């Protein structure tokens, strides 16, 4: 049928079917800005348009309903000065991170400002209440609205300058526009979904309906007969090569325990078969016609069950080792039926007992330390499974061009994707190109290959362009989740609070496959234990296979779970000793010059080594927090007679990449007009990494940011980079960019020295783009121009490689105030203060945005986010309807971030990492505050009202 409407002020006729939703019809009409994050559930708001001026979800409206209506989308910005002002405000307030939600947010603000020119924060929260954003924590959206409002009423309005650092530098330490912000705010083509060719084929997977069982037979003939089906694959006709989906450096500390399709399914949603078809509808129709017979095996649905003698075995194939000796005393002979498991080196595993990996270590003598203690405290803590929920699910477009496989990927690890896809498909790396598109949220989930291997294989074998995007439900159950952990903490202390022993015993649930099975649990230890100095400290870590959804990397990478356990235990210890919690921390924490001995037993995939800290800013952060947060000030009045106010504080840490394991590279070219092209291997997943590398180049070569263009994460064009994980972006990729810029500067000086007749050591760079010596000056443009002439000195290119043995730890102190309702168990986070050291903040507002986002995510994890399963291993809440993530309305009224830089000796311009560390504070701080409010210790998160009432004894 035909629908006539006004689209962005132009009459338009849309051809649509009666049941087609408006989003799809508008997409066919050429709008690219309408995104999708909830599969038409209406809970994400990313497909929003203005319908007769009102913000609505276009996925929840039938296209015929738009007859005669006026529709406005973000594409209308060039004719709508208000919309343009809003976009500019969003950019200037540093709101644009991954950008997947930005057009929807802009429209929500457009509707708001139409009805209220100077809205209150409550009105802003309400206006944004229908738009999910997982990156920003919403805080800066509020600032953007106020900025847009001020500019609309006074076009000459000047916004106050944000915090600035490094006064000797032009760009570094100052807020500059994120290099991709404008493109994303205008809803331009930027994501994988925007790259589909006309002849694209759609890939859909038949996921297992059972959590554990053998595939006895698969019948596909009827499905193959569906017109438009291109190929159907399963374990019967795909390679049996084993690999890991973990995007880690080779050799990975993760077992190779999955082929493309398993013979035995190990979780609900595991791959059984896949259909490639000419349309998604055909693919779905064919999926329904595939008949599968299963032999059901009892599923393993908890850590406790996995550990039990005689429990069902998740992996029962042959166990082998690519290098090193096999550990003694473990079973390696498989049942002859299951696929095998190959370890690249020993992870002290015993898969036939469901043990995927283990490790232990320590310093001193824990038993002696416990004997010396005046008080020994032993507590157990539990962190449950949560979902990363990037708004853009895992997605890839794979195609064959000129005999090579090209992957347009939404990934954090382009080079690891290339290497692992090469192994999975059975071709060499030179035959593969990976192009990282803009990533609509990664958060660790996109460190793993969830879609690229299969799409790559089908594109290569069927010679068709293949589009593979997970549904939201698949994203929940079949992508990657945070490892659930049970952590027992034993502390020994003297009466004055001095620690004599710390022991952490950790059991983690890696799910059906072992990606990150050792490193995530180890990180729970290595980013919590080293905060406390104790001569007798030790740990034991065990990761268990279960039949629940796969675990993997998630922002924080285990550190939030470890931090929750240890920081809460320390607070419990302080309470038991009658000591102020912060005083106990002060007595035992790391400080400037401390040698952290425990790190020698906490190497990641290799031997560790003790680290002696340079300057540590923790003391300043705690002091600043005490004062500014008002740690000792009287508590405010509770919001009602049932409510109690409580406060908590914690110290946190993270790392900055993996010293000695990872590497990054960058190349910087001087173009003929004196501008620069940065070729960075770094994978910007919305964090602003491309802006960091651009700033680095502009700073060193004395240019403006507009003079630098960045191409990043393209395995054909840009040099190798380990990828965006382990908080390595600014430190490693930024470090490589700095070295490339310094290399180019050296070459520029060499060229200029000849042109000016000066010694290179007498030359310096002056803004803007001038090389100045004692005798004269010459512009970069002139040098660049001469470099490409026949009589010139050849194109000038700087190259920088970054690797280091230096460990750069960012630290932080988080303070929280909560209100707890004793009758209902509800918790409101009223105030949250984060005092953090990220070394030199390269772009302060973007750094703060990272912290706001991580804090709000971790508040969600602390209060209500939890994947729930039944006894058969079926996830009960694989959608946003029943898995709630924080919205603008959940933001604490007082969410405050203060950057307190302590420059690093090695990081670019003194920078360290910023994002992941901010995930580590909320859970323990809120648990401690709940105790302060109502006197109960919450040892399992999330702290749901039901759990709190049970802890209070109000509920059986």
């Amino acid at each position: 049928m035909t629908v006539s409407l006004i689209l962005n002020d132009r009459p338009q006729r849309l051809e649509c079917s009666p049941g087609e939703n408006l989003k799809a019809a508008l997409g066919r009409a050429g709008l690219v800005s309408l995104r999708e994050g909830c599969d038409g559930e209406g809970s994400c708001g990313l497909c929003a348009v203005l319908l007769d001026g009102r913000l609505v979800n276009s996925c929840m409206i039938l296209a015929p309903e738009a007859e005669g209506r006026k529709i406005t989308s973000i594409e209308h910005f060039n004719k709508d000065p208000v919309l343009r002002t809003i976009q500019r405000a969003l950019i200037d307030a540093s709101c644009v991170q991954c950008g997947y939600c930005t057009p929807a947010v802009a429209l929500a603000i457009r509707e708001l400002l139409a009805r209220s020119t100077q809205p209150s924060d409550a009105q802003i929260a309400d206006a944004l209440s229908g738009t999910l954003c997982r990156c920003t924590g919403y805080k800066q959206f509020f600032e953007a609205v106020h900025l847009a409002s001020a500019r609309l009423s006074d076009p000459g309005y000047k916004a106050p300058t944000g915090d600035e650092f490094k006064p000797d530098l032009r760009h570094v330490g100052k807020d500059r526009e994120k290099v991709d912000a404008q493109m994303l705010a205008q809803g331009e083509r930027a994501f994988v979904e925007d790259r589909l060719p006309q002849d694209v084929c759609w890939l859909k997977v038949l996921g297992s309906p059972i959590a554990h069982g053998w595939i006895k037979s698969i019948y596909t003939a009827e499905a193959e007969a569906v017109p438009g089906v291109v190929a159907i694959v399963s374990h019967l006709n795909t390679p049996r090569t084993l690999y890991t989906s973990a995007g880690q450096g080779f050799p990975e500390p993760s077992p190779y325990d999955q082929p493309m399709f398993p013979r035995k399914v190990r979780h609900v949603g595991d791959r059984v078969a896949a259909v490639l078809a000419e349309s998604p509808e055909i693919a779905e129709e064919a999926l329904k016609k595939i008949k599968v017979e299963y032999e059901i095996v009892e599923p393993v649905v908890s850590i406790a069950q996995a550990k039990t003698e005689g429990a069902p075995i998740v992996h029962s194939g042959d166990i082998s080792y690519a290098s090193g000796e096999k550990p003694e005393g473990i079973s390696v002979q498989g049942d002859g039926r299951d696929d095998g498991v190959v370890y690249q080196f020993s992870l002290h595993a015993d898969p036939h007992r469901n043990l995927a990996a283990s490790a232990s270590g320590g310093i001193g003598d824990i038993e002696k330390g416990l004997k010396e203690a005046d008080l020994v405290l032993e507590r157990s803590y539990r962190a449950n499974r949560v979902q990363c929920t990037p708004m853009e699910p895992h997605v890839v477009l794979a195609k064959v061009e000129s005999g090579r496989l090209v992957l347009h990927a939404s990934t954090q690890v382009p080079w690891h994707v290339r290497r692992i896809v090469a192994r999975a498909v059975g071709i060499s790396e030179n035959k593969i190109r990976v192009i990282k598109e803009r990533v609509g949220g990664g958060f660790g989930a996109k460190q793993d290959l969830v879609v690229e291997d299969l799409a790559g294989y089908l594109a290569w074998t069927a010679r068709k362009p293949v589009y593979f995007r997970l549904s939201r439900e698949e994203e929940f159950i079949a992508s990657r989740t945070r490892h659930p952990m049970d952590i027992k903490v034993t502390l020994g202390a003297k009466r004055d609070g001095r620690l004599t022993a710390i022991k952490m015993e950790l059991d983690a649930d890696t799910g059906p496959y072992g990606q990150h099975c050792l490193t995530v649990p180890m990180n729970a230890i290595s980013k919590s234990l080293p905060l406390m100095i104790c001569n007798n400290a030790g740990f034991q870590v065990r990761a268990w296979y279960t039949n629940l959804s796969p675990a993997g990397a998630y922002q924080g990478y285990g550190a939030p779970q470890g931090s929750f356990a240890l920081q809460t235990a320390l607070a419990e210890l302080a309470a038991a000793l009658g000591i102020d919690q912060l005083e106990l921390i002060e007595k035992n924490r790391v400080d400037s010059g401390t040698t952290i001995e425990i790190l020698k037993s906490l190497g990641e995939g290799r031997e560790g080594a003790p680290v002696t800290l340079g300057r540590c800013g923790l003391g300043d952060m705690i002091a600043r927090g005490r004062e500014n947060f008002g740690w000792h000030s009287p508590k405010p009045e509770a919001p009602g007679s049932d409510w109690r106010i409580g406060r908590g504080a914690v110290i946190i840490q993270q790392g900055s990449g993996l010293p000695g394991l990872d590497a990054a590279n960058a190349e910087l070219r001087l173009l003929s007009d004196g501008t620069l092209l940065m070729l960075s291997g770094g994978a910007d997943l919305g964090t602003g990494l491309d802006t960091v590398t651009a700033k680095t180049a502009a700073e060193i070569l004395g240019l403006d940011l507009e003079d630098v263009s960045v191409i990043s994460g393209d395995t054909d064009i840009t040099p190798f980079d380990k990828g965006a994980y382990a908080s390595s972006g600014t430190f490693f990729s930024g470090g490589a960019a700095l070295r490339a810029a310094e290399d180019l500067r050296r070459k520029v000086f060499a060229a200029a020295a000849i042109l000016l007749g000066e010694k290179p050591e007498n030359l310096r760079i002056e803004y803007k783009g001038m090389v100045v010596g004692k005798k004269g000056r010459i512009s970069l443009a002139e040098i660049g121009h001469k470099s490409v002439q026949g009589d010139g000195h050849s194109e000038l290119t700087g190259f920088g490689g970054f690797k280091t043995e230096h460990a750069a730890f960012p630290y932080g102190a988080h303070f929280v105030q909560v209100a707890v309702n004793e009758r209902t168990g509800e918790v409101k986070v009223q105030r949250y203060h984060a005092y953090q050291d990220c070394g030199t903040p390269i772009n302060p507002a973007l750094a703060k945005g990272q912290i706001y986002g991580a804090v709000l995510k971790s508040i969600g994890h602390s209060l209500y986010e939890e994947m729930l399963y039944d006894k058969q291993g079926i996830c009960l809440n694989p959608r946003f309807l029943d898995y709630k993530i924080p919205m603008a309305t959940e933001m604490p009224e007082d969410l405050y971030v203060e950057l307190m830089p302590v420059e690093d000796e090695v990081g670019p311009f003194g920078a360290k990492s910023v994002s992941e560390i901010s995930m580590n504070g909320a859970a323990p701080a809120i648990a401690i505050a709940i105790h302060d409010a109502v006197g109960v210790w919450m040892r399992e998160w999330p702290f749901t009202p039901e759990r709190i009432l049970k802890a209070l004894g109000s509920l059986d």
Partner: protein
Amino acid sequence: MVHAYYRPETLEEAQMLLEREKDARLLAGGSYLLSPQFRDIPMSAIAVSGLLPHSIERREESLLIGAGVRFQDLADSALIPEALKHAALGMANRNVRNRATVGGNIGADRSCSSLLPFFFAAEAVYHRAGLNPISAELWREKPSGIITAVELALPEGRAFAYGKYSRSACDLALIGCAVRADLGSGRLDNLRIALGGLSAHVKRFPGLEALLEGKAVPPRAELEAMAASCFSPIDDLRGSAAFKRRRAAVLVADLVGSLKEQCA
């Protein structure tokens, strides 16, 4: 899955289509009918939002709310009692409130409904196209006809309260509760209590109403215990039966208590 779309010119035509098409459904805002749970259910959509009244009319002792009124308009209207505004604002978020209609919420008849607890407690009367008005509860038992408006009696001295429990601010109502009473005597006269989230549909609790009818508001703990004894929810992913029972009882006690405050 909508396979046919009709845009009738009149409500009579809509009624005729409803009777003629086996799988016909009335489509108002679409917030429920176009949700994923219906994606595989074939249906013919009969678009009625353009035919339903969008007005809110204050009469002497009553209020007439058009079935086509959207939630956000309800929340923004100066004519609407605060408790009903509160209920309307309980619907998900602004994007959905801009689209969802009063009629659609009634037709969806969900246990998590934002409006039905209020309508049940208020003993609302539904006006129907070509049929006599019918009480909200009776219509729920035997839905018939196209609802065009909701009439609420608002005599002098009548007080309402609404509250919900949800996991986060923009969540659906895991428990939604509305109470009503006439407070002229200082006691709870004509008390009505309706809750959603404790069973498959929103319903009133006449047993609890009877326990409290004509009495002064009892102490909170006593009221909570009385309420809890009347509820029999089930365990599900949204909470255990024990938790839901307690949470609902707290809600009832708080809302009935707030009626007392309105009286004061």
